[in-house]
């Protein structure tokens, strides 16, 4: 219940944060919403020498629509995203995902940037980010780099963010058909995290699936794009047979299947197939 001691800094600008990171990098943990980091500190699973609280950096909070790009500050909370009317209009998948994370108290603190960086294989956001072809912007003393969601999740609890880097922004291209999307999850019965979660964003023209992207979380050590399903749907009419056959491949692109006391690998694979089918059908019905 009690964290180790650490030194604490609360910069108010990104520049200041970057400087502190350069100085303390290796033994420093960024604190955003704290809803993954603080439980880990309390259980002493993490014991950084320095904690860098980025919660007071106002520039990291904003949500705005910039032409065809939705720009979300790394520190936007799940609640802020769930409640944003603009996002609801331009990309409802974001709010739908946010609303399924944890509980109201967790959503009031936890942030998009923190969740992505944490790269918990059972987290919800990765599925949506993959389905939306999002990009993650990171800053360091060396400047800025932009990482595609597809390259962002590296392994279990490992993202592409390096120790001296800070995630500043998440960029989401406005979907062509915002409503043709869904996020569905099977919550783990104790924690509420995803045993399996599937996000789908579709573009449908005259009953034909013009484009589709599907992100799957929970199944594998890292969230992934269900490319095999996408390929089997693209350009096809979304009838029951096509969807069934395509989503039967929902686990094909998983690097591996996770196993724990809550679900075996086989069952996770099966759930991915069932939920991919449900997701595609629901998203299509919303188009």
């Amino acid at each position, binding site marked *: *219940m*009690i*964290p*180790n*001691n*650490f*030194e*604490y800094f*609360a910069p108010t600008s990104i520049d200041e944060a970057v400087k502190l990171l350069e100085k303390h990098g290796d033994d420093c943990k960024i*604190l955003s919403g*704290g*809803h993954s980091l*603080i*439980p880990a*500190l*309390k*259980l002493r699973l993490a014991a950084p020498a320095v*904690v860098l*609280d980025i*919660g007071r950096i106002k520039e990291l909070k904003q949500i705005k629509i910039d032409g065809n790009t939705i720009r979300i500050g790394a520190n936007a909370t799940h*609640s802020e995203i769930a409640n944003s009317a603009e996002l609801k209009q331009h990309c409802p998948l974001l709010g739908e995902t946010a609303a399924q994370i*944890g*509980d*109201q*108290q*967790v959503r*009031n*603190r936890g942030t998009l940037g923190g969740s992505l960086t944490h790269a918990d294989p059972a987290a919800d956001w990765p599925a949506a980010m993959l389905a939306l072809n999002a990009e993650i912007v990171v800053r360091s003393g060396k400047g800025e780099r932009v990482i595609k969601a597809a390259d962002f999740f590296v392994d279990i609890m490992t993202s592409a963010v390096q120790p001296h880097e800070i995630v500043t922004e998440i960029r989401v291209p406005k979907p062509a058909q915002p409503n043709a999307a869904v996020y569905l999850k099977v919550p783990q019965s*104790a*924690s*509420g995290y995803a045993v399996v979660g599937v996000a789908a964003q579709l573009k449908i023209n005259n009953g034909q699936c013009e484009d589709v992207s599907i992100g799957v979380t929970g199944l594998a050590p890292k969230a992934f794009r269900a490319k095999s399903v996408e390929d089997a749907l693209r350009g096809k009419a979304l009838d029951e047979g096509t969807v069934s056959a395509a989503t039967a491949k929902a686990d094909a692109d998983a690097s591996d299947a996770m196993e724990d006391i809550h679900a075996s690998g086989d069952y996770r694979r099966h759930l991915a197939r069932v939920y991919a089918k449900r997701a595609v059908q629901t998203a299509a019905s919303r188009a």
Partner: protein
Amino acid sequence: MNISLSINGIKHEADVEPRLLLVHFIRDLVGLTGTHIGCETSICGACTVFLDGKPVKSCTILAVQADGTEITTIEGLAKNGQFHPVQEGFWECHGLQCGFCTTGMIMAVCGLLQENPQPTEEQIRHGLEGNLCRCTGYQHIVDSVQYAANKLKTQSAKAD
């Protein structure tokens, strides 16, 4: 580190270790023990307080993060000796047994009703997923929330 925050309208200043959890600040330094601790994985909700108008789990916030904020704990809910309608609902509907989850639960209900003043039973049940109760089986809690929602509605109708 020096911090200053307001709890139930009263300003508190202290020099604290950065690792001090907000819940310990509230309970041990300020002495408001109505905010409880039931876990260390941020799941039980017994520690729920309002921070700048929103329900949060005070066991998952460092006291230094709360520097400059306004906090309301269960002790600050009743006004002028009058129970808050949510407190009243819990009393009327037997929404508590051992009372340990209750204070956090009441704060969470306040958060829920702030977002959704007239929730359905299903919305109530989902809305309270951040709080565990081992005693009541939740049914009387749901009834308590409905009682409070109705009471708040009548109150605001009267105020209009």
